[in-house]
C-alpha cells in the first residue's frame, strides 16, 4: 500500500482498524516530502521532529484505547502565513525570514487539539500577494502536473504539496482566489469559506476584510473533514468570526437550481476551460439539477474594487514591519526614518511594495472618496447582486481561472496581466461568500481545469454536498503520478 496516496479519510480508517500507526503515516509523509521536494519545492520548513512527536502521542492514545479526534494522526501542511508557536512563520518574505511566533493561530490550536500531525510550512507568494507562487522571497514552487509551470497562488505550496501526495491535507488562505486558483491549477479540491466561518486569528493579515483560511485535499470528503475541524466562532480573538451551521451536507442535487452567471463565461475565458466547466454542468443536469442563467452586472468592476480594497488594507496591515519589534531590520546607523525606509525597501519584494504604494495612494487625502469609498460602495452593490441572484438559484458554477496553469516566468513582468488571473474568484471575497474549487477534467498538456461553486453565505454544506455528488458521478478525481 502506498500510504501517501491514501486520502485523509482512508488514513483515519486505517488508524482505527490498526492497519497503520500514526508514526507510520507520519514517516511515509516525511519520506515522500524528502523524495519529491527537490522537484516541487512546496515546503519552506519541514517540522520532522514535531510531526513525529505528535504522531507518537496519537499512537499512545490508540494504545490506551482512547477515542480519536477526526484528524488525529493525519499529516497537514500549513501555509507559511499562519502563525505556529515556536516554528518560524515567514510569509515567504525576507521581512519575516527569522520570525518565530510566540503563539499559535486559532486554527493551529484546533488542529493540535485534534492530534493532527503538522509536517511543515508551505511556500506562497510573499504576504499572499500573487497568483503564481513566484513572488516567494525564497523559491518558486512548481506544479506537480508540469514542473515548468506555476502551481497558482498565493497558496501554491499548500496546493502542490497535496497534489504531489506529500500530505493528504493542507491549509491555505484566500483573499482573492488564493486557495481556489492553486487548487484548480494543481487539480485538487480547495474551499474558501464564508467570511467569518474560520477564525483569522494568527493568519498574517493581507486584506483583513477579505482574508479567509481554507482547506485543501484530494477529495471532497477530506476538505469537509478539515473544514469541520477549523471552522467556528472565535469570540475571544476574532471579532469578525461568526457561528455557522454547516453540519447538514446535502446528499443529492436533484431539484436544485444551479445558476450560470453569464458574465463569467464571456471573453477572456479560454475555450478548453469553458468547455470543461460546461461539461460538468451537464453532469449536474443529468443528476436532476435545473440549470438557469443568472446575471451579476457589476462583475466588470470587481477587479477595481478588489485591488483598491485589498491594497488599502494591506498598506495599513503591513505598516507594522518597520524593523523595530520583529523581523528584518535594515541599517540602524542613521536616523529613525532611514531605518524605516531601509528596512521596508529591502525587506519587501517588488509586488508587495507596489501594493503598499497603491494602497497608500487610494487612502491618501483627496483620493479616499474617489477610490476607497467608491470601492466599498461597489462592494455593497456586488453583495446585493449576489443576494438577488441567490433568490433564483441555490448555487452557481463558474470557471476558477481563465486558463490552465501558465509557465513559470510567463507573467512576472506584467502585474496587470497577472491580476487578470483572479477575475473569476475575487467577487466571492468581495461579497464574503463561500467558494469551492473542484477538478473538472484535464486540458491540453494534461493540465487540470477547475470548476468554481459559489453559494450564499453559510452554504458550505450545500457546496460540499453537491461537489461530492459530482465527484462520485465522475468516479473520483485524477491524482498525478510522480
Amino acid at each position, binding site marked *: 500500500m502506498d500510504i501517501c496516496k491514501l486520502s485523509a479519510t482512508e488514513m483515519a480508517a486505517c488508524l482505527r482498524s490498526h492497519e497503520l500507526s500514526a508514526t507510520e503515516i507520519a514517516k511515509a509523509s516525511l519520506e515522500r516530502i524528502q523524495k519529491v521536494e527537490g522537484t516541487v519545492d512546496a515546503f519552506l520548513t519541514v517540522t520532522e521532529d514535531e510531526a513525529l512527536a505528535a504522531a507518537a502521542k496519537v499512537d499512545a492514545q490508540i494504545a490506551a484505547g482512547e477515542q480519536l479526534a477526526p484528524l488525529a494522526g493525519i499529516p497537514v501542511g500549513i501555509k507559511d502565513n499562519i502563525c505556529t508557536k515556536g516554528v518560524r512563520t515567514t510569509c515567504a518574505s525576507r521581512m519575516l525570514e527569522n520570525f518565530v511566533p510566540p*503563539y499559535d493561530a486559532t486554527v493551529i490550536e484546533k488542529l493540535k487539539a485534534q492530534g493532527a500531525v503538522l509536517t511543515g510550512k508551505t511556500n506562497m507568494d510573499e504576504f499572499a500577494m500573487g497568483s503564481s507562487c513566484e513572488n516567494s522571497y525564497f523559491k518558486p514552487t512548481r506544479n506537480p502536473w508540469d514542473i515548468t509551470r506555476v502551481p497558482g497562488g498565493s497558496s501554491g505550496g499548500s496546493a502542490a504539496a497535496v497534489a504531489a501526495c506529500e500530505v493528504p491535507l493542507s491549509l491555505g488562505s484566500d483573499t482573492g482566489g488564493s486557495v481556489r486558483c492553486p487548487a484548480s491549477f494543481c487539480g485538487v479540491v480547495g474551499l474558501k469559506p464564508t467570511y467569518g466561518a474560520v477564525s483569522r486569528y494568527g493568519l498574517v493579515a493581507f486584506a483583513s476584510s477579505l482574508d479567509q483560511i481554507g482547506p485543501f485535499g484530494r477529495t471532497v470528503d477530506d476538505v469537509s473533514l478539515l473544514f469541520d475541524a477549523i471552522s467556528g466562532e472565535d469570540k475571544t480573538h476574532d471579532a*469578525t468570526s461568526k457561528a455557522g451551521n454547516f453540519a447538514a451536507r446535502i446528499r443529492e442535487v436533484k431539484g436544485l437550481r444551479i445558476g450560470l452567471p453569464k458574465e463569467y463565461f464571456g471573453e477572456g475565458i479560454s475555450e478548453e476551460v469553458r468547455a470543461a466547466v460546461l461539461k460538468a454542468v451537464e453532469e449536474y443536469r443529468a443528476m436532476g439539477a435545473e440549470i438557469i442563467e443568472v446575471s451579476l452586472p457589476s462583475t466588470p468592476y470587481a477587479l477595481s474594487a478588489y485591488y483598491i480594497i485589498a491594497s488599502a488594507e494591506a498598506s495599513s496591515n503591513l505598516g507594522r514591519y518597520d524593523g523595530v519589534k520583529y523581523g528584518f531590520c535594515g541599517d540602524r546607523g542613521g536616523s529613525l526614518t532611514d531605518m524605516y525606509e531601509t528596512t521596508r525597501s529591502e525587506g519587501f519584494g517588488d509586488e508587495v511594495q507596489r501594493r503598499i504604494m497603491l494602497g497608500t495612494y487610494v487612502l491618501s487625502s483627496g483620493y479616499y472618496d474617489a477610490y476607497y469609498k467608491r470601492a466599498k460602495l461597489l462592494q455593497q452593490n456586488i453583495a446585493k447582486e449576489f443576494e438577488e441572484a441567490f433568490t433564483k438559484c441555490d448555487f452557481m458554477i463558474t470557471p476558477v481561472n481563465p486558463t490552465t496553469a501558465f509557465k513559470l516566468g510567463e507573467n512576472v513582468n506584467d502585474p496587470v496581466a497577472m491580476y487578470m488571473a483572479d477575475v473569476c474568484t475575487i467577487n466571492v471575497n468581495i461579497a464574503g461568500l463561500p467558494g469551492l474549487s473542484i477538478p473538472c477534467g484535464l486540458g491540453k498538456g494534461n493540465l487540470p481545469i477547475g470548476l468554481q461553486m459559489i453559494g450564499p453565505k453559510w452554504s458550505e454544506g450545500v457546496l460540499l454536498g453537491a461537489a461530492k455528488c459530482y465527484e462520485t458521478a465522475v468516479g473520483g478525481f485524477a491524482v498525478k503520478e510522480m
Partner: protein
Amino acid sequence: MNEKYEVIVGLEVHAELCTKTKIFCSCKNSFGAEVNTQCCPVCMGMPGTLPVLNKQVVDYAILMGHALNCSINRVTKQDRKNYFYPDLPKSYQISQFDIPLCEHGYLDILVGDEEKRIGITRIHIEEDAGKLIHADGFEGTLADYNRCGVPLIEIVSEPDLRGAEDAKAYLEAITSILLYLGISDAKMQEGSVRADVNVSVRPVGQKQFGTRTEMKNVNSFGAVFRAIQYEAARQIDVLEQGGVIEQETRRWDDANGVSVLMRSKEDAQDYRYFPDPDLLTFVVSEQHVQQLKDSVPELPVAKTLRYVKNFGLVRVDAELLASNKARAAFYDSCVSTGKNDPKLVANWIMGDIAKYLNENRIEINDTALTVENLTDMIALIEKGTISNTAGKTVLEIILKEDRKPGDIVVQQGLGQISDDSVLQNIVDEMIAANAKAVEDFKKGKTNAVGFLVGQCMRASKGKGNPGILRDMVVAALEKL
C-alpha cells in the same frame, strides 16, 4: 496680557480609562509595572493578531458623554489612523474618525463667580501608545510597550475658553468628573490625563477667529496655564509687529517655559483614516444607553450650587467640598441624617478632618470614621454635652476606631460640667486666687473676664461649660 486681544482656547483632553484590561486585549491595564511585562502578541502588534473591543471602554465613554450632556451615537465603528512611530507597534492607532461615540455636548464651569458654558465637540475612544525612554548617555531610544492599548477617551472642546483661567477651570472640572464617574485615575502627573492645547488670539470685537496653533505634550494643570499664557503672548507679539500666525504644531517645553515648533502646516501628516476592517460596526442598545444615563451621579457643579443654595455654604467652600467625590459623598450622607446643622458638618469635614487626611495622605474612606459617629459627635456639641475642644479629642479617636462618641465621652470623662454648684465653687476659687485680674476688671479692663473664664476652664480640665462659666464669672465680679 495685552487688553486689545482676546485669547481663544480649545482643549483636546486624553484621559486613560481605569478598566481592568486594555482596550483590545486581555492584558492588565495598570500603571507602573516593570517594562514590557504587561504585553501580549495583540498589544505588541504581532503579525496575525486581531483586536477585540472591551465593552467596559464603551460604557465608560458613554458615561462621560452623558456627564458632558452629549448625544450618543449608538451605531458606530473604529477607524485606523496610520502613521509610523516606534511607540505605535502596528503603525496605526485604532481610534474613531467620522462617527465618535459621543458628540454635541457641553460643560458648565465656574470661573471666579461666573458660570460659563463650554461646548464639547466630541468624545471618542482610542488606544494609547507605548512609552519611549530617553536615557542619558545611551545611543538610542528605549521602547516600553506596557501602555500600548490602554484605553483612552479623547474629549474635544469647542474654542469656547477665553484664556488660561478658563482652561484651568475646565480641566479641573473634567478631571473631577472623571473621578466622580470612577472611570479614570485622572492623575496628570502620571500621565493618565494629557492635553493638547489649541490657542489663537483676535482683536477684541473681531468675530472671526485668528489662526490657531496646537501645542502637544502639556502634562499638568500648571503647564496648561503657562503654555496658554506664553503662546498667547507670543502670538500677540507677532501680530503687534505686523507678522502673521502660521498654523503649526508646537511642543510645550515646560522646563524652559517656551513652545517650540514641531511641524509646520506643510508637513501636516496624512493619516489615511479608514474603517478598521478587523472591527465591525457596533451597536449599543437604546436601553443600555439609558441605563448608563440613569447611573450618572450628581456632578460637582450641581453639587456646589446645591450646597450654596440649600445649606448656606460659602461658594468657595462648597466648590472645594464638591470637588472631592469621597468627601462630598460622606458629607451628603451626614447631612441626610438630619441630625446636625449642615454648615457645622461642613466645617468639621473641611477643617479638622481634611487636615488629618492631608497630613496622612489618605482619603476619608481610608479612615475608620463612620457617618453615624461623626454626626453623633457633632450632635453632642450642639446639645452642649461636650465642648468643641472635647469634640476634637473624640474625633481623633473615631478617625481611628469605630467607637460610639457617647461612650468615649463617658469613658474619658469628656462631658461638660453644667452643674451650677460645682461650677460656682470653681469660679469662687479662681476669683479668690487671681486678685490681680479682679483689680484689672475694676479698672475697666474687660478682657480680664476672658482670662478668668480661661482659668476656670483649666481648673475644670476643659469640661466646664464655657457659656455658664462666663455668666457666673461676670455675676461674681459685679457682686464684688
